[in-house]
């Protein structure tokens, strides 16, 4: 095998993942999650739901995120979800999903299209700066897409004090900058 000394870079273009602690919040870039989109093909809704149930893969209601074992998923639009799994075991996530759903769903690799940040700490003061989400109505298990600093972002509330953010990888730096700037101005 050819030897090389290429190093993987994070979405922010760094050799190590960015972690910041700003007052009571921390923001950490995450590269340990594999991601694929799953969209029901026309007329195959019942079949997809049945196959998902058999595989133990949750397909939550609109606006929700769920996980079960290795699989997690959040709703993105009618008939479509993002499916998550640990990168270490599911780097080839599409190859894992295809056999489960056969021809009933369209499945697309998404892992490297996104930059993922885990935010922990008091969320309310930070996110009311960043976006128009109403956190009172966005409890744990909620997931949505919205805008932060003109960037389209998925936000998934994992716990009262934990939020996952997914932004386009090509604008990862801008999202990180927005996040850190907002945190510095709040705390």
């Amino acid at each position: 095998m050819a030897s090389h000394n290429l190093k993987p870079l994070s979405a922010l273009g760094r050799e190590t993942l960015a972690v910041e602690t700003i007052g009571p919040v921390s923001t950490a870039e995450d590269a340990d999650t594999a991601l694929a989109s799953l969209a029901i093909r026309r007329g195959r809704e019942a079949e997809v739901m049945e196959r998902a149930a058999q595989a133990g893969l949750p397909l939550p209601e609109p606006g929700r995120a769920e996980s079960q074992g290795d699989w997690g998923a959040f709703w993105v639009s009618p008939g479509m979800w993002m499916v998550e799994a640990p990168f270490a075991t599911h780097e080839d996530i599409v190859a894992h999903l295809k056999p489960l759903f056969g021809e009933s769903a369209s499945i697309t690799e998404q892992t490297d299209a996104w930059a993922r940040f885990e935010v922990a700490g008091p969320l309310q003061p930070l996110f009311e700066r960043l976006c128009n989400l109403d956190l009172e109505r966005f409890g744990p298990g909620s997931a949505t897409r919205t805008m932060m600093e003109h960037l389209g972002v998925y936000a998934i509330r994992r716990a009262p004090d934990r939020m996952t953010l997914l932004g386009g990888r090509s604008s990862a730096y801008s999202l990180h900058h927005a996040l850190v700037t907002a945190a510095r101005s709040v705390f």
Partner: protein
Amino acid sequence: MLIPHPLLGPRDAQEFTYLGDAALIDRPDGLREPEAFHDYLYLRDNPAGVHRELWFHEQGDRSWLVVTRNTVTHEILGAELARDVARGRGRSK
């Protein structure tokens, strides 16, 4: 303005882009009815008052909605999935 998304609840209008009159759902066949197609593409009722209109949840779930809104007061009276409206009119897709 807050738009009551049928699936996601109230959402800031900032997340949406605006297309216009919901009559745009009913596109005539431009090859068979060029006159009707001209009117469809270029003419608008543009009422002052209640208006049914298409909004796209671009920075959200990418649903097209038919929003009923008063153009004089900006009051929003309701929102439906455009998909359901189109199907209700006998459209299959």
